[in-house]
């Protein structure tokens, strides 16, 4: 276990380094990204630009600028070019909205994804399976921005069942928190429910053909126990893999959904910063997102070991 953690931490540092260097380099070669020019505004004169360059350290070599920025990000001193605000503080402010969105949506999509996948597999070829297949494919094919727009249009503007976007802290009013999140959760979850139920269905159908499932039936287990104990656990591995990747990525950039429902979380901040070529927040958010992707991949590996003793005890086996 100790070795595993150290290995993972090493990998994490390497990934974060590579991602940050890439982001930094891309930003510096994209046309129109010169920060001094943008900060100086429309009435820029060479003296002003020179002084901005001096003040912000844009004259330093690229590696030096990179180092300075990374140091500031990790010490919490990094200031955005646009608006001159503390980036890390803005990210922390965005965390409740983003986490509420992602965790809530994940709970919904895992529950329904697994439920629908299970039902489809058990009734493979039957009417229920066909209906669920159509639902899943519709969910996958529906673009998030379209679905979000439809929900907003019908359920908030026309019928006013739900509030029209925005985020309310859970501590302020749990009920309003819930009301504001139901639509974004649903919108986001519908896509993933489609994916997950399809993946689980095919994975379960594979496992149902395994010899040990026949053994389980031959020893007189009921069909429900055969499914839940012998088929499900072995079918979950691809689901766990997907979940690790999807959830990690979502935390770093639920850009569309936060935008549509004005949730003012990290995704929306990322979108604004990208629009303004604002390097410091972009770097910080990329690092934040990459951290979660790597973290969840490590958790996925731990989950594998928990699900499958051959991985857990692999080194002891002959």
């Amino acid at each position, binding site marked *: 276990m100790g070795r595993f953690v150290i290995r993972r931490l090493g990998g994490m540092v390497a990934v974060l380094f590579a991602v940050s260097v890439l982001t930094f380099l891309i930003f510096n070669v994209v046309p129109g990204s010169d920060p001094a020019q943008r900060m100086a505004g429309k009435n820029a004169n060479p003296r002003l630009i020179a002084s901005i360059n001096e003040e912000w350290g844009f004259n330093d070599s690229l590696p030096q600028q990179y180092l300075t920025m990374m140091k500031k990000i990790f010490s919490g001193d990094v200031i955005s070019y646009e608006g001159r605000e503390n980036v890390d503080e803005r990210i922390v402010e965005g965390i409740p909205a983003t986490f509420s969105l992602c965790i809530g949506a994940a709970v919904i999509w895992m529950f329904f994804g697994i439920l629908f996948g299970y039902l489809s597999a058990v009734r493979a070829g039957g009417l229920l399976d066909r209906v669920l297949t159509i639902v899943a494919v519709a969910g996958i094919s529906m673009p998030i921005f379209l679905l979000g727009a439809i929900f907003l249009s019908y359920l908030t503007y026309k019928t006013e069942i739900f509030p029209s976007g925005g985020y309310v802290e859970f501590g302020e009013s749990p009920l309003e928190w819930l009301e504001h999140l139901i639509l974004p959760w649903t919108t986001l979850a519908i896509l993933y429910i489609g994916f997950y139920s399809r993946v689980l269905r095919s994975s379960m159908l594979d496992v149902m053909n395994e010899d*040990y499932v026949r053994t389980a039936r031959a020893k007189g287990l009921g069909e429900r126990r055969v499914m839940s104990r012998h088929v499900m656990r072995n079918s979950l591995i691809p689901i766990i893999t997907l979940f690790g990747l999807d959830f990690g990525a979502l935390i770093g950039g639920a850009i569309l959904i936060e935008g549509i429902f004005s949730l003012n979380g990290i995704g929306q901040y990322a979108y604004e910063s990208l629009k303004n070529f604002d390097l410091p927040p972009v770097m910080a958010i990329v690092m934040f997102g990459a951290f979660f992707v790597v973290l969840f991949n490590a958790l996925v590996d731990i989950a594998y070991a928990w699900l499958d003793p051959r991985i857990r*005890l692999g080194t002891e086996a002959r």
Partner: protein
Amino acid sequence: MSAAPLLTMSDLRVSFNTQSGRVQAVDGVSLELMPGEVLAIVGESGSGKSVTAQTILGLTRSPNAEITGSAQLGGQELLSASERELQAVRGARIGMVFQDPMTSFNPVYKIGWQIAEAIRAHSGGTGKSEARERAVELLDSVGIPKAAQRVDDYPHQFSGGMRQRAMIAMALALKPEILIADEPTTALDVTVQAQILALLEQLNRERNLATILITHDLGVVAEIADRVLVMHNGVIVERGELDQIFYSPADPYTRKLLDAVVRIDSAPPLRTRRVSEPLLEVTDLVKHFPVKRGLLIDREVDRVRAVDGVSLSVRQGETLGLVGESGSGKSTLSRTILQLLSPSAGSVRFEGRELVGLSRRQMRPLRRQMQMVFQDPFASLNPRKRIGQIVGEPLRLQGEARGGELRREVQGLLERVGLSAEHYDRFPHEFSGGQRQRIGIARALALRPKLIIADEPVSALDVSIRAQILDLLSELQAEFGLTYLFVAHDIGVVRHVSDRIAVMHEGKIVEQGPADQVCERPQDAYTKTLLAAVPIPDPREARARQQALGTA
């Protein structure tokens, strides 16, 4: 045998709807199982023997299956029983053991847990710890050493033979009246097979346990069966007492099956070959696989000595048989000889030329001289390519022929291996196992090689097909002056085709010599064990041997 039968099956018919139409798997089977007897159902693949056995427990039920007839277990009709009624029979009154112990346990649960699960499924009142203790007793009774510790092991921590013992323990957990064993030893090494058969025999004797044994192997039948049913194409073609089936078979199919058996104790016709130059010389060949572990950088902590200093030579035009059980390193050895794996040390000379250390480019012209025939005729042919492409590929790659010439060449090869020129445009799935193996042989022959390494070429085939393929190989050898390295786990088959035999065990050659000498006067202890474990398809001799060993 005057008592009432435990199980009576009459006119069982099972058919399945498939994409290519209705398949009649079982076509009117009737049988009776008497208390305490071992009833063997013998047949080749597709004979319907497994479907018959699984239908007893309702395991073949599906929307695509149509099942008619009757199967009565002590007055209870099983074929029309509800799923819930069947669950009460499965495991409790009829226990079942399957072929492959590697895949028949769920890999994610402990062995003891899986046995306890079977117990608790039938006796709701049994507590967890009580069921676990019972699992320990059961494992102990089937000969698992230190059962109290091993009960918490996962399936992958058990060897194949131990898993099959555990499988039997699980099948016996609720003291069933009937045990159905579906090819229980087919996936096991021959020495392990002997142990499992002895265990089944002992259970039958001590507990008077009625057993239905499904197998394709007449040697296994001769060892433990009382009565035999021979199945072919879904029908029982012959039934009778063990000796009657073996010594006075009435049905032509039974006779064909018995004739096709390659017996270890019968010497093949003597062959005379001129003494010739060695074609292949292997000296002190070593192939180790490092086991790596480390924090950030892996370092080698151990190594698997798959091939550990092997020397052998194969002379022009002869067949060297390489025998070994699973894990002995024989497949690694043949791959290392072909330089498909790079050796850790040692030398491989082909026609006097050193192969070790040659680059891929240097090996390429030599590859055409050495070809390989693989075990699994299903997995080793690309399912999306036509037979003509598969067989012609070596010719095309080596720039030998193209267009019409290539086609004629390939069609000639197909005819030579017993297929027909019209098969050129067909796909692999249209062929039977034996035909596919012929395709594999045609592919190996395409470049007119000098050496063919055949890695278990007949292990996946039915007995009657096996003999045909072996005959084909020896005809081709005579015609083209081929040299064979024949790799197999079945020493009977190896003896049948080889001039000389090398026995491999744990990465080393333990014995090497002329075929008759190795089989009749073995020197090495391991060779002796191996030979003693081979079941002899002759009930009288099997009994004599059991008496000699004190097991009967």
